C-alpha cells in the first residue's frame, strides 16, 4: 500500500488557500503534481507575481504571463482569471497579467479565510522569494514595513497598460515598482476592493477612482508633474500619502475620512502656487490630520491671497504702500498683539519670508513684482463668510453662509477702511480688486473684464481659503484661533446689530461708537489717501465719501436707493 497522500484529500479551499501564499510561478507548477492538482491554482484566491526588478526578470514575468494568457485563451480553464495587460517599458513590448479573482462564489466561500479574501500583489522584490520567506510571506499585516526594504528604485519598471481592472472579488490591491498608465487606477469596476497600496510606483493616471475603497496608501511614488491627479474615493477612511513627488492630487470630498497622513515635498501640497498649493479641503474633515510640511511653507501659504492669482500685480507706489499697511485692520487695531503674534508665529521659521516677492498676474497681463505684505487683502476673515448661523440674513432670506457670488449680491456692504460703502459685497470685492488693479491705462479694458468676469468664480475659492485657514489655524495655532474666534464672535454680534440698524434706517451708522465691536474696523488708522492728503477721520464723518478716482467700479454702478 502506498503512502497516503493526505494533502490531496484536504477539504475544498484548503489547497487553494495554501497556493495563495506561493508565487504565481510556484502555484502554476503544482499543476503537474497530480490529476487532482490540475486546476487548483486557478481557484487560488491570490496570484502573486514576484520577480526581480532587473530586465531579465521583467522579461521572465512577461513571458510567464503571456503563457498564462495562452492557457486561458485555449480554454483550458474556466474563467477565474481576468487579464490585465502589462507592458514592460524596458525589454519585452508587452505581456498580460491576470488578476486574481476568486472565481465562483462557491470557491470564494471555500477559501474560508474571510468570505472572499483575495490579494493580488505585484511585488518585484530584489531577492527572489526562494531564499527565505521574509520577503513577502511573512505575516501579512506586520510586514508592510519590511517589504519596503526589498523594493528598490530602478529605471526598469513594469508598466500596467491603460486597461481597466475588472474583478468582482478583489479586496486588496498592492502595487509596487510598477508604472500605471491612465485608466488603470480607474477601479470603479472592482466593487469589493477595500484597500489599495501603491509603493514606489510611477503614476501617470489622470484619475484614481474606486467607490468602495476604504484605505489608500501611496508611498514614495511619483505623480505627474503636468497635471493634478484626480482622486475620487468617496468612501475613504484612511489616507496615507507619504513622500510622493509630482503635483498634488485633487481630492474630491471624502465624507468618512478619519485619518489623513500627508508627508510631502514642498512643491506638491502647499506650494506658493495658489492653485497648486491648496491643502485640499477634503482633508480637513479628517479627525486625525497629520501634516508634515515645513513651517515656512505654511506661512507662505498663509499669506497667499488666493483671489489675486488671476490679477495683475503692480509695483506699489508710495500711496499704495500706505494703503496696504492697513490691510490687517481687524488685527492691527484693538487686537494688534494678536495680529502680529499670528504673523510671527506662523512666520517663525520663514525669516526670509518678509522679503518674498509676490509675482502673480493674469496670463494676459504683464507680471510684476510686489512685496508680499503689500498686497491688498480681499479675503474673508470673518466668520460670517463661512460659518453658518452666525449672522441672520438681513433680507428675509434663509440663513446661509455667503459662499457664492449670488450671496454676495444680496449682502449689503458696510463702511470699509476707507469709509466707502458699496452697494453690496459684490461691489466691494470688485472695488477692492479695482484699487489693487489700477494698472497702466492701456490695460484698463482688460482689467475691467478680469475684475467682472473672474470675481464670481473667485468667491468660492476665497471661501475655500478661509475655511482652510480656519481649520489649519485651529490645528496649528489653537490659541490664536481661539482668540480670533472670540473676536469674530463679537464682530458678528455687532455686524448683526448693524444690519438691523441699517435695515431700519436705510443708512449705515454714522457714529462708530454705536457699535463698539466694529470700532477698529470703522475707524482705521490714519493713512494717506491716493491723492496724498492725510485722511484723519474717515470712519466718523466721511462714510459715504465719493470715490477718489474716476474708474472705480462703485462709481460706475448705481447704488440701490
Amino acid at each position, binding site marked *: 500500500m502506498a503512502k497516503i497522500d493526505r494533502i490531496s484529500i484536504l477539504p475544498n479551499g484548503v489547497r487553494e488557500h*495554501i497556493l495563495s501564499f506561493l508565487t504565481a510561478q510556484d502555484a502554476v507548477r503544482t499543476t503537474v503534481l497530480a490529476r487532482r492538482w490540475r486546476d487548483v491554482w486557478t481557484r487560488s484566491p491570490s496570484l502573486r507575481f514576484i520577480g526581480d526588478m532587473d530586465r531579465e526578470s521583467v522579461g521572465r514575468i512577461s513571458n510567464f504571463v503571456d503563457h498564462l494568457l495562452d492557457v486561458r485563451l485555449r480554454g483550458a480553464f474556466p474563467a477565474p482569471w481576468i487579464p490585465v495587460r502589462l507592458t514592460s517599458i524596458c525589454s519585452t513590448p508587452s505581456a498580460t497579467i491576470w488578476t486574481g479573482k476568486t472565481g465562483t462564489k462557491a470557491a470564494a466561500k471555500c477559501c474560508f479565510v474571510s468570505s472572499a479574501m483575495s490579494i493580488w500583489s505585484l511585488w518585484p522584490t530584489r531577492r527572489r522569494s526562494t531564499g527565505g520567506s521574509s520577503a513577502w510571506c511573512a505575516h501579512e499585516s506586520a510586514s508592510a514595513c519590511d517589504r519596503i526594504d526589498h523594493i528598490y528604485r530602478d529605471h526598469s519598471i513594469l508598466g500596467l497598460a491603460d486597461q481597466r481592472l475588472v474583478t468582482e472579488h478583489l479586496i486588496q490591491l498592492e502595487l509596487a515598482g510598477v508604472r500605471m498608465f491612465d485608466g488603470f487606477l480607474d477601479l470603479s469596476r472592482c466593487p469589493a476592493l477595500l484597500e489599495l497600496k501603491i509603493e514606489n510606483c510611477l503614476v501617470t493616471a489622470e484619475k484614481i477612482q474606486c467607490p468602495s475603497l476604504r484605505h489608500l496608501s501611496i508611498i514614495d511614488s511619483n505623480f505627474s508633474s503636468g497635471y493634478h491627479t484626480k482622486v475620487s474615493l468617496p468612501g475613504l477612511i484612511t489616507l496615507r500619502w507619504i513622500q510622493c513627488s509630482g503635483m498634488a492630487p485633487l481630492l474630491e470630498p471624502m465624507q468618512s475620512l478619519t485619518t489623513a497622513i500627508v508627508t510631502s515635498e514642498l512643491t506638491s501640497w502647499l506650494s506658493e502656487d495658489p492653485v497648486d498649493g491648496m491643502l485640499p479641503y477634503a482633508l480637513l474633515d479628517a479627525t486625525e490630520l497629520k501634516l508634515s510640511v515645513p513651517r515656512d511653507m505654511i506661512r507662505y501659504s498663509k499669506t497667499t491671497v488666493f483671489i489675486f492669482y488671476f490679477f495683475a500685480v503692480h509695483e506699489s507706489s508710495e500711496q499704495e504702500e500706505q494703503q496696504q499697511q492697513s490691510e490687517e485692520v481687524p488685527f492691527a487695531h484693538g487686537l494688534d498683539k494678536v495680529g502680529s503674534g499670528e504673523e510671527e508665529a506662523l512666520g517663525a521659521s520663514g525669516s526670509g519670508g518678509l522679503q518674498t516677492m509676490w509675482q502673480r498676474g493674469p496670463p494676459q497681463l504683464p507680471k510684476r513684482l510686489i512685496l508680499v505684505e503689500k498686497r491688498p487683502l480681499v479675503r474673508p476673515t470673518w466668520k460670517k463668510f463661512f460659518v453658518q448661523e452666525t449672522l441672520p440674513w438681513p433680507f428675509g432670506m434663509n440663513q446661509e453662509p455667503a459662499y457664492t457670488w449670488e450671496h454676495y449680491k444680496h449682502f449689503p456692504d458696510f463702511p470699509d477702511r476707507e469709509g466707502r460703502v458699496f452697494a453690496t459685497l459684490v461691489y466691494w470685492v470688485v472695488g477692492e480688486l479695482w484699487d489693487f488693479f489700477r494698472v497702466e491705462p492701456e490695460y484698463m479694458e482688460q482689467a475691467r473684464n478680469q475684475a467682472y468676469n473672474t470675481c464670481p468664480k473667485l468667491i468660492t475659492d476665497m471661501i475655500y481659503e478661509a475655511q482652510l485657514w480656519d481649520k489649519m489655524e485651529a490645528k496649528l495655532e489653537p490659541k490664536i484661533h481661539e482668540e480670533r474666534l472670540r473676536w469674530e464672535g463679537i464682530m458678528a454680534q455687532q455686524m448683526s446689530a448693524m444690519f438691523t440698524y441699517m435695515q431700519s434706517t436705510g443708512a449705515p451708522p454714522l457714529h462708530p461708537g454705536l457699535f463698539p465691536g466694529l470700532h477698529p474696523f470703522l475707524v482705521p488708522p490714519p493713512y494717506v489717501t491716493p491723492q496724498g492728503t492725510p485722511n484723519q477721520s474717515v470712519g466718523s464723518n466721511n462714510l459715504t465719501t465719493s470715490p477718489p478716482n474716476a474708474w472705480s467700479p462703485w462709481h460706475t454702478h448705481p447704488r440701490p436707493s
Partner: protein
Amino acid sequence: MAAPESGDGNNGAARMVTLISSDNTRFEVEAAAASLSQTLQLTILDGGGGGGDGIPLPNVDSATLSKVLEYCIKHAPAAANGGAPNATAVDRAELERFDNEFVNIDQSVLYSLIMAAHNLEIEGLQSLVAKKVADMIKGKSPMEIRRTLGFPDPTPEEQAEMNAHMLEYGWAYE
C-alpha cells in the same frame, strides 16, 4: 458539529468553556480563547459550553485539540484588543516567534491541524498552517514536492501524464 446548548447566561470576564474532543477528553479554556474559532463563537455567545456540559468536537482528537488550544490561548489577548493597534513590536515579535515554533511539527500533526483549523474556522491558524505548507512547496520541483508532501510514488501512467504536463507547462519552469 457544535451541539445545541442550553444557555446559562453567564458572561463573566473570565468565563470558561469546556470542549470535548473526539476521544472524550475535556478541555477547559477561557471563552475568549475558544471564540477565536468562528464555529465555536456563536455557540459560546449563546451561552453554550459552560458549566458541566461541554461542546463536543467529534472531528478533533485530543492531541490536535490541545495544540489548537495552545495557539488560541497565545493569540487570544492580541485578538481581543483588535490585534495590531495596541500590540507592541515586542508582542508581535513574540507572537511571530511562537508561530514559527508552533508549526515546526511533524507533517501528520500539521495535516490534523489544517483539518482542525478548517473545521473550527480559526482564521489565523488557517493562514499559519497554509503558509507552512506553502513554504514546503516553494521553489521545489514537482517530484520534490510529491516527496515532501508524502504523495505515493507515481504509477507509470501517472508518470507519463506528468511528463506530458511538464512539456506543456515548461514555460512555468523558466
